[in-house]
Each structure stands twice: as structure tokens, then as C-alpha cells.
């Protein structure tokens, strides 16, 4: 027990770093032999803390070697308790053709601590806490520090109570988390995350229920932003919308899936009505996983008496050449206003993830983005990450 407490203390101290989005890797659905996200995650729609099955997959299937268990298997947690953490350090180089381009930076990107408590066989409590990331040094005139005070950046993005009597079947949960919708990659800069309702730290207070089976899953959610009176650690830091979302996914033969989704978000300044589709296809022989998402968004601005239509999409594939390595090129498109020429954005991404040993990940990411019409300078991003999960 003393060893366990020490380990949790270390994780807790490490968490006074920099939180990012709840980690989800849709690239592992089908490719790792699991056909649904909740097979490896406690959350019914995936993301966040991984279960004992997920830890086993992390060591045996995803990484080149090692033990994916909590603290590399050095400690066995009681069955009613699960814990974990994510730590990331990143270095970036951006170039956009401006007078002071290119620019380089390094920064602690994420430190999240997770805990899940089982309350009997059917209920559980999930808690997450960390500190907001800080990609760029703060203006010295504001705080006088390279990075702002850690205490001011504490945030709990996810905390919820869940009823889930078995791994498959019905479930319900209430608390703070993203309403299930779309491909929720780790990379929050992807257009489908940034412009479709799951931008970084935009978790809402949500009541969600649904059904998960081997062949299909359905998630229905109602959400609202935290009251403005809540402390910063529990506040919504982005768009403030209330509404609902639905996601239905049907899987074919354990190697592909199609999903339909819809979301309505009503805000004070703007409202969004959106719907779309998600496709996933695993080709075992070629070790290729294709992932695609397309959404159509109707955005209304009542004060300006104006409505615009948007389109956002992602299309990519991930190649698994050897165990522990995945290579993923992708194309993204965001059309800010379908009626106005020159408001489109194209991004071409290449991401290489290397898992040399269980609990360790190296990420190399490159992005080339074209904005607007020809003649505007392109923007490039090169990023390297070191990721450790407890």
C-alpha cells in the first residue's frame, strides 16, 4: 500500500504540468483486433483512462515491447480502483511567411491524472485533473513569468458518474465530458475537432445514454456549458453552447464501420446545426486503416441576421508497417462559408507514431496548410512529442 501511495503521489506531482485533450486513438479500432473503442477505454464512447484490456493491448499489440499495466506491472491495483496519467513534452517549428517567421518553441503539453472508482458492479465515478497546456510564453508585461502560475491553470475536464452494468448493453453517465460525436483524435488542431464542437477544453456538462454492442453503438447526449459562476477549473473555455448530439455507428465484420451523427448547439451569439458521417475501413492484408469524417454545419447569427453554411472533413489512412509504428497521412478541408470564395482551408498532414516500449510514445507531426485563395502564404507546422502514460 505504501508503494501504491508513493506511485500515486508521483503521478499527482507530475500532473502539475499541462493538460491536453483526453487521449483517444481511433487508429487502434479494428487495427489492434478490438472492434469498439469501449473495449480498451472505460468510457463507453472511448477516450480517457484505459481499462485492463486496453493496458494489455498497449503492451502486447501496440508497443514494440514492455508491460502496459499500471506502473509497468510493478503494482497491482484493487479491482475497484483504476488510475493513470498522461505526460507530454512538445517542440514545434511554425512558418507562415510573416516578418518574424519561422518560430520555434518547446513546451510541456500535457499532464493529466485519472482515477476511476467502481461503486459495486454497475456504477462508477471517473475523475480527471491536470493543468492547462501553454504552447507559447506569456507576454512578459502580463505576468512577468515565462509560464503563468501553475495554480491558475488547474482544470478538471472530465468528471462523471456512470451506470454501466456490463461491457455491452445500455449505459448512462452524467457529468463533464464531450458528447460523443465524430472522430476525436488526440490532435485537437484537426479541423473536425476545432470547428465541429470539440475544440480543446470545450467539454460541457453532459447527460448521455446509449447502447453498445459488438455490432453497433448508439450515443444520445444533452449538454450545457458550465455556469459562468463556476471556478476557472470547471469553466468552459471555449464556445458556450447548449444542445444535444447523437452518434450511431454500425460495424461490418469487425473490420469496418459507418456512422451517422447530428449535433445541435444553441448559443447566445450563434447557433450550430450540424450533421455528418464517419467511415472506418481496416484492410488487414495491407495493414491499412482508413478513417474519414465529413460534416455539414448550418451556423446562425441571430444578432447579425445572417446564416452561413460550412463544411468540414477529414480523410486519412494509417499504415502499420511493423508492431509499434504507425504512419498516417491525412487531408483536411474546412470551408468556413460555402457561399464565399476564398474562405476555405486545406491541410495536408503526416503523423508518425512510434511506441518503442509500453508507456512510451514518440510523435512526429508535420502539417502544410493552405488558406484562402492563391497568393496567400501557406503555413507549416513541424512538431515532435514525447509522451509517457502511467
Amino acid at each position: 500500500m505504501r508503494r501504491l501511495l508513493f506511485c500515486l503521489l508521483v503521478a499527482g506531482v507530475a500532473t502539475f504540468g499541462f493538460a491536453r485533450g483526453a487521449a483517444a486513438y481511433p487508429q487502434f479500432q479494428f487495427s489492434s483486433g478490438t472492434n469498439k473503442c469501449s473495449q480498451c477505454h472505460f468510457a463507453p464512447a472511448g477516450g480517457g483512462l484505459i481499462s485492463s484490456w486496453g493496458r494489455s493491448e498497449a503492451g502486447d499489440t501496440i508497443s514494440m515491447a514492455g508491460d502496459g499495466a499500471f506502473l509497468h506491472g510493478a503494482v497491482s491495483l484493487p479491482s475497484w480502483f483504476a488510475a493513470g496519467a498522461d505526460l507530454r513534452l512538445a517542440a514545434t517549428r511554425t512558418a507562415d511567411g510573416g516578418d518574424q517567421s519561422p518560430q520555434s518553441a518547446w513546451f510541456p503539453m500535457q499532464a493529466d491524472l485519472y482515477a476511476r472508482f467502481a461503486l459495486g458492479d454497475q456504477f462508477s465515478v471517473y475523475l480527471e485533473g491536470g493543468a492547462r497546456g501553454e504552447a507559447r510564453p506569456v507576454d512578459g508585461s502580463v505576468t512577468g513569468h515565462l509560464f503563468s502560475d501553475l495554480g491558475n491553470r488547474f482544470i478538471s475536464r472530465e468528471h462523471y458518474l456512470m451506470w454501466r452494468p456490463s461491457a455491452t448493453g445500455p449505459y448512462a453517465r452524467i457529468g463533464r465530458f464531450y458528447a460523443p460525436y465524430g472522430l476525436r483524435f488526440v490532435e485537437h488542431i484537426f479541423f473536425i475537432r476545432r470547428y465541429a464542437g470539440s475544440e480543446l477544453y470545450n467539454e460541457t456538462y453532459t447527460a448521455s445514454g446509449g447502447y453498445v454492442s459488438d455490432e453497433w453503438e448508439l450515443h444520445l447526449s444533452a449538454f450545457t456549458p458550465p455556469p459562468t459562476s463556476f471556478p476557472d477549473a470547471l469553466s468552459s473555455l471555449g464556445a458556450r453552447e447548449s444542445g444535444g448530439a447523437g452518434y450511431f455507428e454500425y460495424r461490418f465484420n469487425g473490420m469496418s464501420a459507418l456512422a451517422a451523427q447530428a449535433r445541435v448547439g444553441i448559443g447566445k451569439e450563434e447557433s450550430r446545426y450540424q450533421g455528418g458521417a464517419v467511415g472506418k475501413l481496416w484492410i488487414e492484408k495491407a495493414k491499412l486503416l482508413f478513417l474519414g469524417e465529413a460534416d455539414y454545419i448550418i451556423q446562425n447569427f441571430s444578432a447579425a441576421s445572417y446564416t452561413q453554411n460550412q463544411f468540414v472533413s477529414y480523410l486519412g489512412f494509417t499504415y502499420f508497417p511493423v508492431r509499434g509504428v504507425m504512419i498516417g497521412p491525412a487531408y483536411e478541408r474546412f470551408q468556413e462559408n460555402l457561399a464565399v470564395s476564398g474562405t476555405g482551408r486545406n491541410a495536408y498532414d503526416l503523423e508518425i507514431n512510434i511506441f518503442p516500449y509500453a508507456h512510451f510514445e514518440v510523435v512526429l507531426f508535420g502539417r502544410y496548410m493552405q488558406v484562402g485563395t492563391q497568393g496567400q502564404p501557406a503555413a507549416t507546422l513541424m512538431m515532435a512529442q514525447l509522451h509517457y502514460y502511467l
Partner: protein
Amino acid sequence: MHNPPMFSGRGLFLVAVAAAAIGCGGTTDERPPRWSFISPAITEPSCATVNCHSAIAQRGGVDLHNRDAGYDSLKTRAFVNPAEPDSSPVIFLMHAQGSIRMPPDQPLPEVDIQLIRTWIANGANND
């Protein structure tokens, strides 16, 4: 571990793939050059991200997280100059002239910058 390669929904998947590649625009910009549109449509999603000009970060003392806060920041910090819209500091920032580009990670389309310029030229009101 996996079943034989048989995919009954392949056609639908290809439709989804094709849909992911579309997206084009018209030729005229009829969007209102008003702050009630520009703030929620352009500056909030592009500039009020959590590490930059959100209510909690307020980089450089600039808070663009909603219409009123954004308007106050731009006016009180003199980022807009209705008398000479092209010399407005916010226009220089968005064009990366003499400074890092704003927003630094994802430049705004030129038509969005021109819409903001028109709003400034019209008096930069909280309309």
C-alpha cells in the same frame, strides 16, 4: 483475430470518402461587416482559443472570447483605427507585418481580413 475481408458497406464508405473531398465557395462576399457577425464567426473561433485570447488566458491583455469583451479589447487597446483602417494595428498583425502573425497557428483567409477592414472603415462599431 480478424474476419475475412468482406465489407458490405464499401459503397457507402466510398461515398463518405468522396464527400470528404468536396467543399467550394461562391464568388461574392455578402457577409455583414458587423461586429455581431465578425466576433462569433471569425475572431472567437480563430483567436479566442484557450492558450491565446480566451477569457482565461487573455494573451497581451486581449480578451476576444465574446462580442462585448472582444470589442472592448480592440477599442480600448486601439487595435482599430476607423480613420485609417489600413493602418490599424490589428490589420498589421493579421498580415504579419512587423510582428508575428495573428493568429499564429492558422492564418485567416484574406477575405476575412478584408471583412474586418470594412468593419473598421465603417466606424468599428459594436453593431
